[in-house]
């Protein structure tokens, strides 16, 4: 679904969790990103998730859930891979990134990052 604003998005998440879904993906990186929500909204939605025995995965450009997130992962881009540069038609092959565990409420955070290669052909 494509809610028109952030408030509608949060209300939609509550509806979806109330229906019995166990995993909800909330993509806030885009038009919805520009708006900010009070901490009480995150607290409320976190409580709904706990009560529904469900998980909410939030995608955003920055850490917006703050203290209410149980697990926080950050993907840092390292470099872009272009093939055939200097030739007549170079091709964008993908991006190399590192995945960091920034926060985990029930265990240690940090550690060795995991290298990811996001390929356009995978």
């Amino acid at each position: 679904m494509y809610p028109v604003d952030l408030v509608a998005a949060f209300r939609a998440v509550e509806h979806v969790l109330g229906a019995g879904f166990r995993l909800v993906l909330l993509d806030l990186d885009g038009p919805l990103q520009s708006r900010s929500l009070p901490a009480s909204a995150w607290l409320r939605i976190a409580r709904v998730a706990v009560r529904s025995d469900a998980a909410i995965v939030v995608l955003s450009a920055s850490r917006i859930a703050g203290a209410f997130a149980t697990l926080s992962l950050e993907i840092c881009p390292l470099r872009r891979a272009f093939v055939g540069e200097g030739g007549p038609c170079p091709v964008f092959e993908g991006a190399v990134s590192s995945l960091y565990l920034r926060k985990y409420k029930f265990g240690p955070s940090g550690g060795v990052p995991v290298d990811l290669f996001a390929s356009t052909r995978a």
Partner: protein
Amino acid sequence: MSRIACLLVPDLCLMAHLRLNSELAEKPLALTDGRAGRGRVVAISPAAGKAGIFPGMAVTQARAVCDALVIRPISSEALAAAVSTLADVASTLSSRVEIDDHDVVFMDCEGGGLLWASEAELAAMLGARAARCGLPVWVGIADSKLGASVAAREGGGLRIVPAGQTREFLEPLPLVLLDPDPEIAATLASWGIRFIGDLAALPSGAVAHRLGSAGGMLVRRARGEDDTPLVARQIPRTFHESLVLEYGVDRLEPLVFILRRLIECVTSRIELHGLGCREIEIGFDFEGGGSDLRTMTAAAPTTEHKIFVTLARAHLEKCPPAHSVTKISLVGVATQIRPTQLDFLRPSGPAPAALASTLARLAVLCGPDRVGVLRRADSHRPEAVEVARFEGLSTPKQETSAGALASIRDRGANERMVVHLALRAFRPPVALEVFERAGGLDYVRGGGFGGRVVRRAGPWRLRGEWWTADPYAREYYDVELSDGGVYRIYRDVRLQCWLADGVYD
């Protein structure tokens, strides 16, 4: 021997009106056979009776007697809806239900022994369910339709005639209960026949010889035999409700208030059949002529009237009626609520009913065209997608998750994980300013991002739909900008403009 139950609503005209206007239950109310204060009073509420109003009075006379009298025209559509509702109630307990010409409902009680312990319990269940629909009902149960009908009228609430005793039940009752033709009734009265038992004792052939076929039929009815068997009606797929308003309504809140009651009636009737309401059509008749028809479709079949009320409110706020509304007609389209098969290996998802109502609520919240599943549209354009209806949860391929787990487990500590790179599409595409230098792309800005082009891939030329009035011709590039992002942009060759198609996430 068959057992038939008869359901009838006493003072049906009044009850059909009060069913849709429950706020008038305590007020003096008179239903008339004409509109706009003309005609005569046909039915009255108890409060109107206490105020001195009686059926047959002229409307002007009734107004003079009681200032507070509420006068409404009688509505044949409201009557039909009330009788259909009664049949819907009967359908919850029997598959064979008939509506006869006198607005009486008959149901076949045979074979329902598992649903009720006794016929008294059946009658109590029918009464309770009809009351929930706003209709007080009288129930009679006998061996035949006629016996059940007379039992319901005579019982004044509940009357059960024991099996095989219908004729004995009818014998002491007055002949007028058989609704004889007036001419035949006069002849029988001149013969001194005033009770049903007297007529039943006569030989039917001799009576038919003297009074015609109608007389013979009357004798058979007096013996408790039916003229026609019970003819079951088909389960309806559309449910109608309508309300004529006393004066034109042009404001949204009163209109939604009235709609709420009508929608509640329709959804509750659909729920009686174990179905869900998928679509509601609302028709408005305007003051001074003209009409309008609105269709509201829920994302999934549901029996929650609040969802349709919210849909109707949203629709009316967006497109209010052009004139004052004097009549509202509502048609609910019923359909099966889709059952879902649970997966043995996966946790149970949402229940079908909960999923249906959730989809409908989300459609109200986000808009019907923003909830669903993205599917490719029948087009050659790369961005051609459409939002299709969400039909339920699909079972993922088991090997996908198993394969992914195996690949993670087997990977070495320093080995890199390969995933698919996603393109976050901009819809609609974002207009850009692109500066070129020495035949190449130099700088890009627009849509909240911008920077010098560090590296680029492309162009890929794409053109199509040249056989239509709206062809496209584009040159696509993947550009890495100095802001760190990689974007897919294209130049529209026909319109000579640059657009951003998306960003690699």
